[in-house]
Structures are given as structure tokens and as C-alpha cells.
């Protein structure tokens, strides 16, 4: 697939990379239909965020269509259109249960790095350095979304507003 890769300070490039696949039973693969460049992507672009590696796929604001679901997903179906939050949350830890989703304890596989810097690690983020989990982002044709049913807003919500609002988002 094609994806926008970070290549170093002030350098990004669209490259061919491997398509994502289901790694965990609650993953979904999303075909991305809309994505955005955020002001905070510029911090990456300008080289201010440490632990970026050449080839990392950028993008944390995206939406799309579910094309593949892990075996433990019950509600999300192929063909569902979803908006994906940039913070990844498990839905089951202390923080998720206390409505503090961006502090999720279970979604940053590189939590040890954050713990050294911050004391504790926040949740993993899409396309936002290895410090934040090293997840491939959504400025690509496809993305793997972990704990997809925790974050994704299901299709039924989108129907009424799809054309008017989401087109402009």
C-alpha cells in the first residue's frame, strides 16, 4: 500500500509499505477514506519529537471503512464506516474505567521509555513516534486499529451527517 513516511527532519515521502494485518484478536483493519494533517504533525515534521525513525508512517486523525476484523470483535463489521480516535485505549484498565482514556495503561508497548521520562506512560497514539507506541499512522491506505470496538464510532452514527459534515472534516 501507499503511505506517508517520515524520513527525517522536514522530509516526508509517500512510499510503498507492507499492508497491516490483524495482530491481536480485538484489532480491525481500516481502509482509510479521509485523513488530516494536524498541527501536532508539524512537531514531528520539524523534528522536535524524539524517537521517530525513518520510514515511520504518520497520521493520527483518520476515518475509513472496516475491511477486516479480529476474532474477538462482536459489533464492528466489515463495511462499517468509522471515525478513529487518535488515542488508543483498551477499555478495561483502571484509567479507561475512570474515563481517563488517554491515560490507558495497556496500549503503549514502549511504556518503559515513557516511564523513564514521565514517571508513568500515557496511552499509545497513532503515528506519533516510538515513545508513544510506534503505531503506524493513518496517512496511508490502510491502518491497524487495536481495541477497535473501544474507540471507533460505529457506522450508524455517521449516516445522517456523512455527506454534510465528514466531507468537510
Amino acid at each position, binding site marked *: 500500500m501507499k503511505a506517508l513516511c517520515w524520513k527525517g527532519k*522536514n522530509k516526508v515521502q509517500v512510499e510503498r509499505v507492507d499492508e497491516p494485518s490483524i495482530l491481536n484478536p480485538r484489532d480491525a483493519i481500516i481502509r482509510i477514506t479521509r*485523513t488530516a*494533517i494536524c498541527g501536532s504533525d508539524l512537531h514531528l515534521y520539524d523534528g522536535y519529537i524524539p524517537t521517530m525513525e525513518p520510514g515511520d508512517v504518520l497520521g493520527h486523525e483518520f476515518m475509513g471503512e472496516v475491511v477486516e476484523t479480529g476474532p474477538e470483535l462482536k459489533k464492528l463489521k466489515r463495511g462499517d*464506516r468509522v471515525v478513529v480516535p487518535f488515542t488508543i485505549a483498551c477499555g478495561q484498565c483502571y484509567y479507561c474505567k475512570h474515563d481517563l482514556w488517554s491515560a490507558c495503561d495497556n496500549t503503549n508497548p514502549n511504556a518503559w521509555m515513557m516511564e523513564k521520562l514521565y514517571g508513568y506512560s500515557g496511552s499509545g497514539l497513532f503515528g506519533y513516534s516510538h515513545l508513544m507506541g510506534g503505531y503506524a499512522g493513518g496517512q496511508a*491506505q490502510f491502518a491497524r486499529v487495536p481495541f477497535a470496538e473501544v*474507540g471507533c464510532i460505529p*457506522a450508524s452514527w455517521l*449516516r445522517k451527517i456523512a455527506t454534510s459534515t465528514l466531507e*468537510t472534516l
Partner: protein
Amino acid sequence: MAAENCDINAGDVIAVWGCGPVGQFTIRSAFMLGAARVIAIDRFHERLRMARAAGAEILNYAEVDDLIEELKWVTGGRGPDACIDAVGLEAHGSGLAAAYDDYKQKLKLAFDRPTVLRQVIQACRKGGVVSIPGVYGGMLDKIPFGSAFGKGLIFKMGQTHMHRYTAPLLKRIQAGEIDPSHQGGTGSVAGGRSGVAPTSSHPHSSTCRSYESYCDVSRSRWLIVPMCSTLGPRAQFDSASQ
């Protein structure tokens, strides 16, 4: 969340630094949560115009001598009840402290340029709230913490708890209380550029150009940089969702 964090009471005056998409939403949210006045601070006219269209009073920081004094003046000497930093670590400051930050950041001695953070702390009224949706990553230098302590400020900040807000916000959009299409993307805003996707005849380079133009050409004027068609076929929202 940025506005919610201010615990707004009826009659409150809220000052918002930065009128990009986050700032624009924050201004509208503050009014929705009961703010009597919102003061929007930026230096780009297009953005300030949008802020004014949302009902905010505007302040171009590049045109005033002393922003803190100006805010004091327009709030009857008391200062805003809450100050929101919707800018974060790459603030374009001016003056000695900003030059110092820039130098340190270039030498990799510091990741962040906390110009706005210093201002929100100084400007906020005693016992007020400093709300920080703008991103910070590392160690900060020359932060007037004595001022924060002396005035008994309340600090609220952090990565947005997305999962808490997506559903309620979509509900408000559906109810017509929020219109995100006003935040940019199409026609009238974004420095007069229309919200069309970049040409698909150069799909490989146009996304990269989006970064360049966002960053260099008119960095702070763009509100939403369109880039959707560069990576794949466009979504068929109409046909598939009905």
C-alpha cells in the same frame, strides 16, 4: 475538553491563545458552556476574523505592546477567569525569552518553546484556571511558577480523552449545535484557498507538498490542509452510507 477544563461559570471571561482549528472549537465550546466573553488571541487576520464570527473579541498580539496589560485593561483590571493555551510547544514568540527558547531548541537543550504558557500564567486572574490543550513534550525553562503559586492558579491539561468526547460531540453535530464545516476546509477560510484536494496527477508528491505548504508557505493561516485524494480512491460516502 479544553473549555470543559475551565469549569466555566455564567459570566466568565475566557481568553484563548491560538485560533487554529483547536482554538476555533475551543472558542465555540466556551460559549456553549456559558462563557459571557471570549477573547481570542492570534496574529493572523483570517483566523481572528473566524474567531470574531464565532462571537469572540479579538486581540492581535503582534499589534499590542504588552499583551498582559491589554488583557488586564479589557477585563476591568482583574484578568480573564480562565486562560487557554491552544498553541503548545512551537509558539512563535517575540522578545528576549523567545529568542532564548529558539536558541535552546535548536541546540536540542530543550524541546519546547513555552512562550504562550508563560503568557497564560501571567495573564490569568488570581485563582483562575490555566487550561492547556496545546502539546508539550519535554522540560520547560523560565516558567513563572512563582506567579502561578502566588495567584493560586489551577492547572488542567493533557492529551484529550477522545473516547469521552467523540459520541457526545457527534450528537451535538447531528443536533446542529456544532458545525465543523465552519472550522475550515471549504472556501471562505484558510487564506482564501478553497478546500479542494490537491491534484491527483502527482499523487506521490502532493501529500508531501501539503506538509510543506502547511509548514512553510502559510503555516499558521491554513486551518485544514486537504490531502485526501493523494493516497487512494476517495470515499463514496453518499452511496455507501445510505
